[in-house]
């Protein structure tokens, strides 16, 4: 197989010298192939989810173009660059998040954006999805692993500080992703199972406290709605009921492309953004969902392989944490759309319509490609 050849040639590059076009471009062709396949299929679903609005597809295509450029740029950089920049970027991100609290702009009662004069509008929390794992990896990889208790503590502070700032915006979805990204670093660094158990216990104790003191009314509502969507079928429960109806009525092989009645008759809200998975499920059925999950699984497998073959702890930790963040995206979105998890604003990665997350995700894949293509022959 051609893929296998490319795979082996990259893996056994003894001198670390660029060999072939892929290495010259610092691109992992397998990952690239999987991503392109996913994005291509996603655009078809998007066309249906946006009710045949070709402009939406064009805008999304343009975004992928930009995101590809970002990915390529990140892939060219040596992993050590990320390591060196991590503390600075982290500091910048924290400042940005604090600034958002005071001068941020946004909508629907949440302040997420920072509009600095002379710069394009951007979302510091989105940046933190990449920077927090890098910062945690930077800190933990400086010492021997597994980390001592105190260093785990510092690592957790590094993760939780931005997470809390994002919760305050409030943006539960992003906070969750940022926090998970950082926690995965601590996990992969070798945090002891005892500590993990203690941490889990702590979280389960903190959850009720969060419920009464930390969560906003609409966030509580989302959780309550998950537990009993029928309690408010025309209000908060509407999304869940309609998306489950869309998914369920799709059946084994779906209603066919552009034939989904739930989305095209406007019963399904957010059908081209967060709930696009329901459109796919309705039109392509269980078969479509299994294929989609397989593609995601292959991407995750490839990325975990990249992290396992990475040559230093920083790269390993960053690669694995970003991979797992990608998985969390997939799981939270699909769990939410299928009524397993509360409705939090997490898009279906690389398929949902929307700008920032696509760029961040592709940047993460750029980092993974950089890690994979900048390995040098070091004998242990």
């Amino acid at each position, binding site marked *: 197989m051609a893929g296998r050849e490319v795979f082996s040639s990259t893996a056994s590059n003894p001198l670390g010298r660029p060999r072939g076009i892929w290495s010259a471009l610092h691109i992992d062709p397998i990952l690239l192939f999987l991503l392109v396949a996913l994005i291509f299929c996603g655009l078809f679903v998007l066309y249906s989810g946006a009710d045949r609005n070709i402009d939406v597809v064009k805008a999304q295509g343009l975004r992928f173009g930009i995101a590809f450029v970002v990915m390529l740029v990140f892939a060219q950089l040596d992993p050590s660059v990320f390591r060196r920049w991590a503390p600075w970027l982290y500091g910048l991100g924290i400042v940005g998040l604090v600034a958002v609290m005071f001068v941020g702009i946004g909508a629907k009662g949440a302040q997420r954006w920072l509009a600095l004069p002379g710069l394009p509008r951007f979302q510091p929390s989105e940046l933190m999805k990449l920077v927090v794992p890098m910062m945690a990896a930077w800190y933990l990889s400086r010492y021997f*692993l597994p980390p001592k208790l105190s260093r785990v503590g510092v690592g957790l502070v590094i993760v939780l500080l931005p997470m809390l700032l994002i919760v305050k915006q409030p943006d539960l979805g992003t906070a969750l992703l940022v926090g998970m990204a950082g926690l995965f670093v601590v996990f992969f660094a070798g945090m002891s199972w005892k500590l993990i158990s203690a941490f889990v216990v702590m979280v389960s104790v903190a959850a009720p406290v969060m419920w009464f003191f930390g969560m906003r009314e609409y966030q509580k509502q989302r959780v309550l709605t998950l537990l009993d969507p029928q309690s408010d079928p025309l209000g908060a429960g509407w999304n869940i009921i309609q998306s489950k109806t869309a*998914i*369920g009525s799709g*059946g084994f092989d779906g209603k066919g492309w552009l034939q989904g*009645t739930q989305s095209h*008759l406007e019963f399904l809200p957010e059908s081209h953004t967060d709930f696009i998975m329901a459109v796919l499920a309705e039109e392509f059925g269980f078969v479509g969902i299994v294929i989609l*999950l397989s593609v995601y699984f292959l991407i995750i497998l490839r990325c975990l392989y990249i992290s396992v073959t990475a040559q230093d702890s920083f790269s390993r930790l960053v690669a*694995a944490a970003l991979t797992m963040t990608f*998985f969390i995206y997939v799981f939270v979105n699909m769990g939410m759309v299928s009524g397993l998890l509360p409705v939090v604003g997490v898009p279906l990665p690389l398929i949902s319509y929307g700008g920032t997350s696509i760029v961040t995700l592709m940047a993460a894949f750029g980092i993974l490609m950089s890690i994979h293509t900048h390995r040098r022959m070091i004998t242990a």
Partner: protein
Amino acid sequence: MPWGEFKDTAAERRLFQRRVVVMLMFVFLLMAGLVARMYQLQVVEHDIYTTLSDKNRVQVQSVPPPRGLVYDRNHELLAENRPVFSVTVVPERVGGMDATLEQLSGILDVSDEDLERFQRRLREPRRPFQEIPLRYDLTEDEIARLAVHRHELPGVEVEAELVRYYPHGELTAHALGFVGRINRKELQRIDPVNYAGTNYIGKSGVERFYEDVLHGKVGYQNVETNARGRTLRVLARENPVPGEDVQLHLDLRLQERAYKLLDGRRGAIVAIEPSTGGILALASVPGFDANKFVTGISVPDYRELSESKDKPLFNRALRGQYPPGSTLKPMLAIAALDSGAVTRDHSIWDPGYFELKTGGRPWRDWKRGGHGWVDLNLAMAQSCDVYFYKAAEEMGVDTIHSYLSRFGFGEDATLDVSGALSGLLPSPDWKRATRNKPWYPGDTINLGIGQGFMLSTPLQLATATALIANRGQWVEPRLLKDIEGDHPVEEFLPTETHEPLKLKDPSDWEFVAEAMEEVMQGARGTARAAGRGASYRMAGKSGTAQVFSLAEDEEYDADEVRERLRDHALFIGFAPVKNPQIAVAVIVENGGGGSSTAAPVARAMFDAWLLEFSETAEGALVSKTDSEKEVH
């Protein structure tokens, strides 16, 4: 790298690899969980969600049947359905009701009345997602303006609706009745399925009595709608069964003539075809435009109608209960003859007054000084009161009551006339029960000339007249002549309950008819002026009913008081005497003398029916039945 620590890269890599394996298992498990969840939704529970999705998408809409039309006997249209465009609001679908109404008021001409009516209907119980009309009869301009703003106004729709229209407005309002919006009480009575798409129901008259026939059967259509309830396409349709078209005995031309004859006065005319009992004309003047009531009359309009002293909403023909006065004398003559109280040539001396055998105050004859020697024929022709006082005294109240009840007095003898009243046929029992007083002999004497407690409606008088015209053969008055379709009309009419009035000597009918002919055409008949110059023979009897008092709280100026205290003029009659074609009862309120005011009206009705319309009416009737025979 800080001092004092050193890294074991191989150990770190192994640790990392173990953790990746753990995470891989974690990922695999969660993904399997997602697949399981999807399998549950899409395969196991697929049917449930398919149903939900179809229920979302497909809505069953009722299609109201078009209401049956109403024709007169010559197939002249009396009630039809007209498309009317109205703007409706579905409260469940609008964003904010106040804002929506305000915006609509900016686009359309919405009056305070419209708003008030809308708010009233908003509070009434109704079906969920049922639209509430805000304004009817939109102009094309308004429809266009609404179309421009449609996207800003969820839940607001322009609807074309078939609305009842009475092309002859005032002429037919009392005879036909009218339809109106279904109200709270009716909502509980009607079949919710069959009326699912219907907004109107017969409120009175024929529209009410034949509601089931006229309404038809509801149809359905499955339509695909989007989340905002807009219909996108019709998937399947079961057509409604339209209401049956109904033909009445009514003759619009005669009806029109009746209104013209009473124009400017207050009164009623009922004309019946004796052979069938069919009501040819049923006029109550003044009338009103029933079309105003169909979509809901405005408050000032209603106040004007209901507070008018002339009471246009009051159906005098069916519900006006008047003392019959001397028009009762032909029926009393039958009673007196058949009961043996008098014989045909029994004569009395009328000194101008009458005293009971037991004495007491005298009863006056209308003619001072009396009629001298009178037999029954002359007593009828001249309306001699004393003769009938004596006859009444001879018969006694029970005999009179028994005969008069056979004429349909004291009951609603109609088959299908909705809202007809039964008048009052007094009896000792009745007086004891309602007034707690014994029946005095004087009460019988009063009854002998149709005064006292006795009350009857013009329709009852016409019915009794038709009975005389038919020589005792009962035909209950009816409006329905025919219903389109295969079913014979008898299926829709209630069964006839009256036995023919058989006399011991049937030729008494001819005697009384001839006496009534004397009234119109005899040398001494009271209504001979009205009967003069006719090319056919007619029978009749005039009457005058005293107006006792005016309601105390009513205010009239002096001239009006004088006018409103005048007697009611009454007249009954039929023509021709042999083989009668028409029986008529006329009342002109405060019209004065029956022979001078009411008799000419009856004569004009006879002329119209027998001379002016007869040929065409008969011709149409004959040719129609002939052509029907050929078809079947």
